[in-house]
């Protein structure tokens, strides 16, 4: 019995490592190749190691565009995720705790936000009207608008599992509504907040099409857009492209490793604290 478990575990580990590690090894090997060898897209050992040279070239391309892109992407991701957590939790709380005709209507709009696809040109007109087009602020607001429905849904269903008795106990102790939210409810939402942060920050950091259309301009690059420095319709420099992919993959990976512990901690700490 014990041995069978051991073998099963080992097989699962082997399968998982093939699925998750092989693509990463491929990216790493491609990133170290020369232009000529990379153009064949083989899964092979590099004949010459050009890892450092490729790295330097990618970072220096277009006047250190990648560094600017890291900055822009970080600002957009952090800003948008912060707003998403804050507003998602607030709206979800009200919608769950106060069922009424008005909250059902608002919930209808939230669902509509998930279902109706956004149109690019009218959205740009709105941004132009507000003077937010081609600004990071405008991009953050777009990401918030696109992600808010999902966050509200997630928070609303999670808040349903938080007993109302806690709110009432806090109310009897003399807490104001905002105190109930910030001091009693929000700390209990940690597990779902961590989930949301992980899901949304990866989605926003990796977003390609929205920055492509809503954030034109030389200064407004995001990391995903830098991939186009090395890939074009007819000619691609695959070694630099894969090096860029490697560099772009690292920040979310760090976030994920960091939050992995937080997720587990958040799950176990889901109970009421004293």
């Amino acid at each position, binding site marked *: 019995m014990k041995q069978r478990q051991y073998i099963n575990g080992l097989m699962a580990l082997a399968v998982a490592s093939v699925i998750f590690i092989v693509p990463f090894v491929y990216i790493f090997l491609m990133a170290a190749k020369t*232009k*000529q060898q990379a*153009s*064949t*897209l083989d899964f092979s050992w590099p004949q010459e190691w050009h890892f450092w040279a490729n790295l330097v070239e990618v970072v220096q391309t277009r006047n250190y565009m990648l560094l600017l892109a890291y900055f822009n992407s970080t600002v957009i991701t952090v800003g948008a995720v912060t707003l998403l957590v804050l507003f998602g939790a607030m709206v979800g709380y009200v919608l769950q705790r106060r069922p009424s005709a008005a909250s059902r209507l608002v919930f209808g709009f939230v669902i509509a936000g998930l279902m109706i696809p956004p149109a*690019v*040109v009218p959205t*740009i*007109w709105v941004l*132009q009207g507000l003077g937010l*087009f*081609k600004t990071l602020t405008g991009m953050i607001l777009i990401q918030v608008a696109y992600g808010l429905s999902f966050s509200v849904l997630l928070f609303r269903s999670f808040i349903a599992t938080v007993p109302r008795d806690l709110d009432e106990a806090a109310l009897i102790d003399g807490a104001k509504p905002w105190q109930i939210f910030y001091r009693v409810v929000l700390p209990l939402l940690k597990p779902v907040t961590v989930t949301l942060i992980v899901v949304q920050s990866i989605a926003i950091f990796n977003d390609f*099409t929205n920055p*492509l*259309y809503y954030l*034109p*301009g*030389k200064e407004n690059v995001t990391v995903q857009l830098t991939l*186009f*420095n090395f*890939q*074009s*319709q*007819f*000619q*691609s*420099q695959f070694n630099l492209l894969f090096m860029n992919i490697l560099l772009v993959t690292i920040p979310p990976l760090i976030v994920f490793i960091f939050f992995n512990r937080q997720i587990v901690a958040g799950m176990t700490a889901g109970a009421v604290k004293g």
Partner: protein
Amino acid sequence: MTKPIHSLALASAMALVGNLAAADVTLSVLIDNNAETITAFDALTAAYTAAHPDVTFETEQRPGGADGDNIIKTRLATGEMADVFVYNSGSLFQALKPEQTLADLSALASQANVVDSFKPVVTSQDGAVRGIPFGAAMGGGIYYNIPLYKELGLSVPHTWAEFMANNAKVAAAGKVAVAQTYGDTWSSQLFVLADFYNVLQADPNFAADYTANKAKYATTPAAMQGFAHLEEVFKAGNLLNPDFGAAKFDDGMHMVASGEAAHYPMLTFGLGTIKQNYPDLVNDIGFFAQPGEDAAHNGLTVWMPSAIYVPASSKHMDEAKGFLDFIASVDGCNVMIKAIGATGPYLIKGCELPADVPPSVADMLPYFQTAGLTAPALEFLSPIKGPSLEQITVEVGTGIRSAADAAALYDQDVEKQAKQLGLPNW
């Protein structure tokens, strides 16, 4: 006495302001992200700023393909287009609603330098020329491996029968006769599209009749040939590379340059890939037009280069036009040749190519030097190009669908697009 002084002061102040304003002009430029485009524009803008220190540039890149189309249309629709931008000519140009969105460049002084055959592909429905050519014209035809041709004692074919005979000899020698790369579906269309010169020889009115819904691929024998050739090459059984279903464009270029394959049907921009990845093989590839039925009528189907446009919404219209005047001049053309070399003739009168062009470019030039040996591809003569052609040609090229069936299906595919464009008689 005071009045003249006032006006003098005013005049000098205005002159000062004028100078300052002139010094401030920064033209925004939006180009595609092909390495050659970027290099060419770096050289052009640097040369122009050197001659006109009051104009500086801010260059921005966009992706190609469908994303690029969307960016161009979105930015034109929202009035956010750069002062100067590069985009395809021909049917994609017509899709931009050029009458409303692009500036009229008919009066540009340098239009006199532009080769006349280019102008129709950047002329809007109202007859105004709205672009100037950017880069070299491309030919659609067949790359061949020169050392392999010498080794097997082959000569450049002038008819399809000769081409197939060459293929048989190559296959007998144990090499790949025709490289095909259906992993990049667009590369499957070449046999059909590059055959258009031959279609026009048999039926000179095909493009006009086709646009007017009078001629069809399925009912025009000459037009059917492209599909038939594709089928024939597959049916022969031993001509294609074994991985033709999955190979990519890069693989195809490598095969024909290294001598693994004898032929690869492609547009002449493919040379750029060889220059980048296998610079020592550049002299091993040659080029010939896709042969037709008749050796007496052997000519090249030509793809017009992209064009440079100025949007109607540009705030620096005069400076932008000045820059375009420079690009379309012989000087501008030479700057480009110096920066990126030549993969084909530039469409500027008096702009000579250097003597040391690679053999595949040299092979292409004779077609341009004699009148009547080139014809534009169908997509420059007719606004209709069905969106599914590349899928259909993959089906034919892999033996899934017969040539006759494919031609009929493509006629149906085209119908949707013609109706969307609102063409008469569809």
